[in-house]
């Protein structure tokens, strides 16, 4: 029985590396993307595309977004932009009147006089108008701040030549100008979460989420799912992605079609955005409980591989807590095994971290030039020290055992044991520390301290902490509020 307990505890410890191991598998699959023949069924087609932009007080960003859409390398007569003004109280209506006059027949202003119901209702208002006419062959749902590169739409629409494809998304890059450290963290994160993860999902022939910032839907697929998107959750884009695939269509990601978007600059901004996403994922997990691990007419949504990808993200904080529990329990019942498990966890974490970081930098060198430092610092300085200990531990032990014991980092004394216990607790403690950083920023005290502390605690733990907060909100049945991410319009391309 004791042996079984030990095995279970060690397994719990190693579960702490689950997210990184799944991340490595995703990068390996992304490398094999070409084998899935992503361009085998594309053709030079230009379907009539109706672009929907939901807008509430977006005067700061809309002007440029509309101009860029009108400059796309796409036949002018095949493109219409519908801005659904959700009862804006700023200069959005005046701006849209000007834009509709500038682009007659190209830009349309749809006004909702009773607003505030959320993004999904606003999009559905546009969909009702668009689908009432036979003109549109595809609908592109985007955001008011998203800047399309000139070839992005034609690169996306080529996939609709395959009648089995119902939805396409592209690579959304962080493009805030001048970006701050938080923007660069997001920029690096998107290499892993989009450029790599979504290519991996192409290989598995399933997509978890076609980003709401650039979601191209074939009219047939859209009508098949009822001509409207889900309004009962905070993840309308993920619901659409699932519903389109459950209706028998394929969903595709094109990593060479690129758009730029403005992402949060502060912890509080990131917290609002990601808590909404995480709560949405939680809602998707429950709503589609009949899909998970069930093969059949769900296509690849029911595959074990997709479940592994999905749940590694949804349960990320649970794995962290399990690892901490395993390490601390072993610390008190079997110290040598606790030390060996600690070394194994951090060596595993170290190699997977290096693989993911190297792969990300190689996958998008253009973004890597801007975000390499945040990529390296992604786990936070404290975790990097632990990773270094895991990677270099055997070398240090072999050559510097005496010195380590002298300075109190090794040996049987109290100090090494306290250090080990603190390190064991850090996996979960880092999430608490990240939450404290949010509180610090909210308080407005010591604003200069926030940035160095984020580097110390890490962006990864911050995301974990937000996921925990989202769980708590969902379990408390908190109100579903669409907290809009503030945009400044300072977004551009980085070459």
């Amino acid at each position, binding site marked *: 029985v004791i042996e079984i307990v030990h095995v279970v505890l060690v397994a719990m410890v190693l579960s702490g590396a689950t997210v990184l191991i799944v991340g490595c598998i995703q990068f390996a699959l992304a490398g094999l993307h070409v084998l899935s023949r992503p361009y085998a069924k594309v053709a030079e087609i230009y379907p009539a595309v109706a672009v929907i932009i939901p807008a509430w007080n977006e005067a700061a960003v809309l002007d440029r977004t509309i101009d860029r859409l009108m400059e796309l390398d796409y036949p002018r007569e095949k493109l219409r932009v519908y801005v659904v003004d959700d009862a804006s109280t700023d200069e959005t209506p005046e701006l849209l009147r000007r834009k509709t006059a500038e682009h007659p027949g190209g830009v349309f202003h749809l006004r909702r006089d009773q607003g505030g119901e959320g993004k999904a209702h606003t999009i559905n208002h546009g969909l009702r108008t668009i689908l009432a006419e036979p003109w549109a062959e595809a609908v592109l749902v985007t955001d008011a701040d998203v800047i399309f590169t000139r070839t992005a739409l034609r690169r996306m629409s080529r996939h609709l030549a395959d009648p089995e494809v119902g939805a396409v998304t592209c690579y959304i890059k962080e493009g805030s100008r001048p970006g701050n450290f938080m923007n660069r963290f997001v920029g690096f994160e998107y290499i892993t979460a989009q450029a790599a993860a979504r290519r991996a999902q192409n290989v598995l022939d399933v997509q978890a989420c076609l980003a709401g910032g650039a979601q191209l839907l074939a009219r047939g697929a859209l009508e098949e799912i009822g001509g409207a998107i889900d309004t009962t959750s905070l993840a309308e884009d993920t619901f659409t992605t699932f519903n389109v695939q459950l209706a028998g269509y394929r969903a595709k990601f094109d990593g060479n079609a690129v758009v730029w978007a403005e992402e949060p600059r502060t912890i509080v901004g990131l917290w609002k955005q990601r808590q909404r996403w995480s709560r949405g994922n939680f809602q998707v997990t429950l709503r589609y409980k009949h899909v998970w691990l069930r093969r059949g007419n769900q296509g690849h949504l029911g595959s074990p591989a997709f479940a592994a990808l999905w749940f590694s993200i949804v349960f990320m904080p649970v794995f962290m807590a399990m690892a901490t529990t395993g390490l601390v329990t072993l610390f008190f019942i079997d110290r040598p095994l606790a030390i060996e498990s600690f070394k194994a966890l951090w060596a595993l974490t170290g190699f997977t971290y290096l693989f993911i970081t190297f792969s990300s930098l190689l996958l998008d060198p*253009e973004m890597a030039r801007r975000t390499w430092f945040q990529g390296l610092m992604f786990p936070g300085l404290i975790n990097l020290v632990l990773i270094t200990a895991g990677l270099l531990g055997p070398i240090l032990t072999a050559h510097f055992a005496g010195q380590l014991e002298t300075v109190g980092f090794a040996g049987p004394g109290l100090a090494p044991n306290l250090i080990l216990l603190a390190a064991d607790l850090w996996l979960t403690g880092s999430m608490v520390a990240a939450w404290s950083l949010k509180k610090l920023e909210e308080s407005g005290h010591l604003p200069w301290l926030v940035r160095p502390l984020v580097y110390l605690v890490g962006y990864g733990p911050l995301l974990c902490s937000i996921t925990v907060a989202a769980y708590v909100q969902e379990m408390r049945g908190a109100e579903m509020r669409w907290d809009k991410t503030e945009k400044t319009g300072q977004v551009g391309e980085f070459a």
Partner: protein
Amino acid sequence: MSAGGRGRAVFLLIVFVAVASKMFGGSRPGGVTPPNPGPSWSEDLAEDRRFERSLIFRELAAILLIGLLILVRQLLS
């Protein structure tokens, strides 16, 4: 560790640095607004296919780098 082992480790480190510096130097197609007039549809496709083919080598390079690090770690410990 023997002198030979140390020499091998140093050699592998030099290879590692050389490969890493070569790898991080390249540029990625797509994502940049092309000059007007832009490339044609078929040029886009050819460029995208080339990039997707290159991914397998980029991943192999990352695996090679990690493999080298593991080897160095084993040699030095």
